[in-house]
């Protein structure tokens, strides 16, 4: 019984480690692509206002997409990966 509880705790920890590592990788990817979208805004050349707003919108959308993905992943972890089958 006690051995099973210990196993459950280790399983929980490792599952959450996996979630954090996935979130970290997705964060780096999101940051990379949003930076690519936003960087031209800060160059010395002045692009048109519409293009600038569009680039900013794309950058913010990528980060928002990351947050939504992260939330959906957490739901999968909460209801599918972490609980025991009997739950």
């Amino acid at each position: 019984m006690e051995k099973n509880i210990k196993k459950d705790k280790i399983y929980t920890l490792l599952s959450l480690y996996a979630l954090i590592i996935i979130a970290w990788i997705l964060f780096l990817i999101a940051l990379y692509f949003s930076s690519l979208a936003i960087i031209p805004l800060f160059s010395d050349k002045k692009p048109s206002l519409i293009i600038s707003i569009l680039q900013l919108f794309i950058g913010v959308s990528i980060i928002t997409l990351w947050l939504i993905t992260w939330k959906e992943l957490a739901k999968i972890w909460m209801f599918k990966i972490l609980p025991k089958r009997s739950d």
Partner: protein
Amino acid sequence: MLSIKEIIFSNIICFIITLIIIPLIMKISKKYGLMGIDVHKKNKPLIPKIGGIAIVSGVLISLFIIEFFNNFKNSKFLAFIFSSIIATIIGLLEDIKEIEPRLKTFLTLLIGIPFIFLGAYTPYPILPFIGKVRLTIIYPFLILLAFAVTSNTANMIDVLNGSLIISYLIIFGGSIITSYIVGSIEAIFISTLIISSMIAFLPFNIYPAKIFVGNCGSLFIGAAIASIAIIARTEVSLIIALMPQILNSFYILSSFKGLKSGKSIENRPIKIENDMIKASFDKNAPITIVRLITARTSMKENEIVYIIALLSFLSVFLSIITQIFLIK
């Protein structure tokens, strides 16, 4: 430039001041009824709830002494002191009389103002893969946002005895390493002061707690981590170090569909039976870090805090990896 002697001396002062102030705060809390219920215990004891004042006092008094001898020349330290005072006052107001959640969020946006007014920032954050970017117009707005996010994030993880202090001890430990990598002595110094103060406070806050950190302490600690990120220019690595805490606050906010008080939520994320905490499987309950940890098996409060600490260890490790290998 700070000498090693000054750093050691101020850390000792900080540790002693915190230790001296804790019993005083306990007496003041009892005298004025500033007590919080320890909801995860069977007998629901009343605990003094403004313990964070001891941490703030230890850090700020020792920093003030150092600044006094340096004729208040360092604008970064001054910005940190003023921001910390604003965060503590907002937290204290919340501890005395609950503030409406939207007003509280607005007030936390003000914590970063001293950094903007004193110009204690560099608007060129260094991003992974890409390097330095120029954000001269947006950066001041990001400062305000960063303080609101980090202070509320720290506030939301302070749900179990020792959960805030233990996880943030690890995060501030990590910030010493990342600040060392970028060569920011100011950020290292502030981190060590906060660690000294939190080490003095920990025996009183760990399970079973004799004193709570309170909103005054949690908002201060959250604001301090944002200050360090801005001073050292380690913004990205600190976001990574804070991932379990950000995850927790983001899930809560998105589950609540807006800014609401935690006490007003009908579908509780956890259940407590015989001092054991177990996740609720109600689909409408907010997904919190404690709920995720207890989804497989029920755990004692101190066991959950131990797992939160281990998660913080991983995120801090990832932040250091990012700082060393990906940020040039």
